[in-house]
């Protein structure tokens, strides 16, 4: 297989994947070869100041959009509460794992964990955490270890902010059983 890959590249191909096609191989390759406007080029210095004055505040995603979940699952309050409680448990574990993987610059693990936590967070409306996970997913896919570490350091605080808001809403629901 190695020889086949070399022959393909020597013949002018950009890259090579062997069959059977696996998404875990295809995905990094798509990330490498397709232009991705969502992720800035890695060589851009992260400390470059934002020159546009209105660049930060209006576009910033909210810590928790309490209406997001009902747009997806409907307005059944009990169901929303069950899902939010489950989210807090699974997201806490995923945020901890993501933080560890980012510190270790384990970019494939960062890509996978960030992807999972991103979609769960957006489902429940934890938009700021979701946006951070999207950046981490892109950094992981680009195999940018230092950027993963920088972004990963923000994960625990981003999760805690979302957790605080969601837990507060769960503690004072319209019809909570006493003592639960």
């Amino acid at each position: 297989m190695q020889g086949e890959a070399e022959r393909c590249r020597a013949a002018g191909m950009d890259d090579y994947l062997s069959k059977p096609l696996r998404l875990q191989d295809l995905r990094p390759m798509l990330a490498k070869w397709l232009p991705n406007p969502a992720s800035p080029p890695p060589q851009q210095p992260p400390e470059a100041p934002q020159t546009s004055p209105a660049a930060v505040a209006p576009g910033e995603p909210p810590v928790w959009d309490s209406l997001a979940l009902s747009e997806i699952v409907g307005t059944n309050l009990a169901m929303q509460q069950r899902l939010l409680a489950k989210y807090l448990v699974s997201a806490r574990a995923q945020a901890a794992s993501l933080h560890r993987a980012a510190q270790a610059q384990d970019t494939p693990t960062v890509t996978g964990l960030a992807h999972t936590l991103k979609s769960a967070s957006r489902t429940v409306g934890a938009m700021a955490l979701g946006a951070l996970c999207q950046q981490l997913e892109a950094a992981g896919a680009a195999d940018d270890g230092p950027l993963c570490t920088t972004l990963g350091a923000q994960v625990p605080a981003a999760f805690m902010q979302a957790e605080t808001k969601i837990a507060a809403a769960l503690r004072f629901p319209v019809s909570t059983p006493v003592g639960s």
Partner: protein
Amino acid sequence: MNPHTSHKLIPSVMVVDDDAFSRDVLQEMLAAQGILDVQTADNGRSALRVLEAMTTPPDLLICDVFMPDMDGIEFMSELAKRQYRGDVVLVTGVDVETLSLAREIAAGQGLRLLGSFTKPLHREVLAQLLATR
């Protein structure tokens, strides 16, 4: 055995997704539609094991595309080999390119692909899918 002629009023469903929270969300939404006969699996390989243990295959399979061990694309090929005749819905959080690739592969292998969607699947879309099948 043929789902073309024996559409049950309330279908049995299998959800294949590596993310437990995604499975929970779908299961809650299916329950809200009156569908309680729901099997789950966390990747293609475990889904095949669950399928093999079932006497009647599920009427509808809702399957994630990107999963560890056996992803949705490989799972589609295995389903086709086993001549699965139920409906398939693909969902994914990854880019649209991957989703359209998965769609082509599923359709090319003769599976009954009902639709493919980016995650999360909204309640209205799920209700519509269940109504049209």
